[in-house]
């Protein structure tokens, strides 16, 4: 199994520069994306129930090995990664091109899993793009995955329906946040992870033609979204508070009493 993970800034502690409104990404704490960890957890459970090896793949600019080791601490066996400045400008197209080659370089897999969307860009594109690039079918937004002999059975959840799909390997699956809760590695597992193999692959080893590395989208700017709110705290007991709230909403013109 191959699991794709992305190093992303921890959004919960991210700050912005009040003069430019841009995020201070250089100061952010790196972590692995939420739904990537869910995909990894799902792969680990498959490994525990049905066997197999879990290989983690990642691509980014200035990747931190300690962050990638968290995936190994959770129970993945090995890691292959590309860390290259080219990825700081990469769009979904370039990322998919690099990761599809990296997966081949790492020996290919029967099951390929990734998060439904990254925690920073939230493109929802990696799984479907890999599917087209690699010629492997893909099931997006999985909320459960089971193996039944050679058959992989996936339940996916869409806005207006849930579907159960079946396929044989090779198959790409994108994990919905609800597929599994990522385990917290124990101290013992963290220790064991330091001995697991990590292979840094140079981007030139992937044999990507120039146009496959040329982004089709350019980021011009990023700014924080702020909406001024009044932040009026209503105090008192439930009834008092309710009275005050209703009065305020009548004054605001949204309620009539």
């Amino acid at each position, binding site marked *: 199994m191959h699991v794709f993970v992305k190093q992303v800034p921890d959004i919960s502690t991210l700050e912005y520069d009040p003069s430019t409104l841009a995020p201070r990404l250089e100061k952010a704490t790196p972590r692995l994306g939420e739904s990537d960890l869910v995909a990894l957890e799902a792969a680990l459970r498959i490994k525990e129930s049905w066997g197999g090896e879990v290989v983690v793949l990642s691509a980014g600019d200035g990747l931190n090995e300690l962050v990638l080791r968290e995936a190994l601490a959770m129970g993945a066996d090995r890691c292959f990664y590309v860390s290259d400045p080219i990825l700081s400008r990469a769009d979904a197209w370039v990322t998919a091109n690099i990761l599809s080659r990296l997966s081949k370089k790492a020996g290919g897999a029967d099951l390929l899993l990734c998060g439904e969307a990254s925690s920073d860009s*939230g493109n*929802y594109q990696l799984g479907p793009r890999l599917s087209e690039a690699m010629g492997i079918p893909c099931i997006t937004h999985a909320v459960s995955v089971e193996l039944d002999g050679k058959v992989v059975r996936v339940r996916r959840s869409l806005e207006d329906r849930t579907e159960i799909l079946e396929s044989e390997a090779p198959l790409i699956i994108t994990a919905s946040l609800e597929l599994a809760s990522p385990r917290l590695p124990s101290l013992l597992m963290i220790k064991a992870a330091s001995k697991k193999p990590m292979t840094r692959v140079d981007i030139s080893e992937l044999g990507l033609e120039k146009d496959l590395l040329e982004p089709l989208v350019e980021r011009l700017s990023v700014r924080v979204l702020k909406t001024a709110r009044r932040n009026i705290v209503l105090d008192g007991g*439930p009834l008092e508070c309710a009275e005050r709230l209703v009065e305020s909403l009548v004054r605001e013109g949204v309620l009539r009493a």
Partner: protein
Amino acid sequence: MMTVLILAGELDELLELRTVADQIGAQDVEALVPDALVDGDTLSSLGLKRVYLLEGFEETPPEELVKIVIDLVKKRGHGLVVGPSKKIYRELFARTAQNLSSPCLTDCTSLESVEGSLVAERPFLGGGYVERLAIKRLPALLTIQLMGRRPQTREKGSLEMVRLGRLSTEDLRLRRVAVEKVERRGADLAKARVVVSVGRGFKRREDLKMAEDLAQLLGAELACSRPIASDLGWMPEEKHVGLSGKWISPQLYIAIGISGQVQHMVGVRNSRIIVAVNNDTSAPIHREADYSVPLDLYQFIPALIKVLRERGARVA
């Protein structure tokens, strides 16, 4: 001259996406819609040149729709393909884009033409930020975050309708063994004036009754945070608001037992007034609310219902 192809499964989606084509001054606009959507009157006043009607649109999986879209885009030379930000369209567009060596942007909140090139904005970093992106190659495929935009009315024009036959499901590598439709309930959240929204502060499913009563009293629609729909299954997925759900802009948004993470707040940022009911004074929602009620919802909601009843208060 830019030609645009709109993909939409519902009339409301088509209407909203039509405004996007206007924003970039597109002249030549076509649409691909389910054949069930034929409403000649509305369609012909949208200023569309051509509408493709696809039988079985809804049931056709993205990996099959890819072929139709690629075919159309290649034949007609569309510079831009737009669709609603829903899971199926995001997948369809990403696949089509990879195939055509094209850019795909999901969840766009705006699109403009700047000195001849397309510039889009979309949520970034969980929705607390916006990124502004220049599109470097056409055709580009964009899913648009629906927010209730409405197109200008136009004179009725001539409209060519082209029927596309049902596709055979060729990809035998994926088998759909079961499909469960989720029953639609209530009105469209995007149009609601008042929304009562529930989060994990509710301990049991039965307790949502309180919120339903409140919503009914206010003539409000009921919405929820993502975990209430997706983790707990207490509400249908189409009722969850936020980054990965609906984006709404009611006059009044009452968030009950919701912590207010960025991924939630981005979907309600355009509300006129936000009321937060949360007994943890350090919950982020209190910083993003107009009125904060730092009380236990189990005590406050019954009190609010009582006061509203006594006063005979209703939505203005």
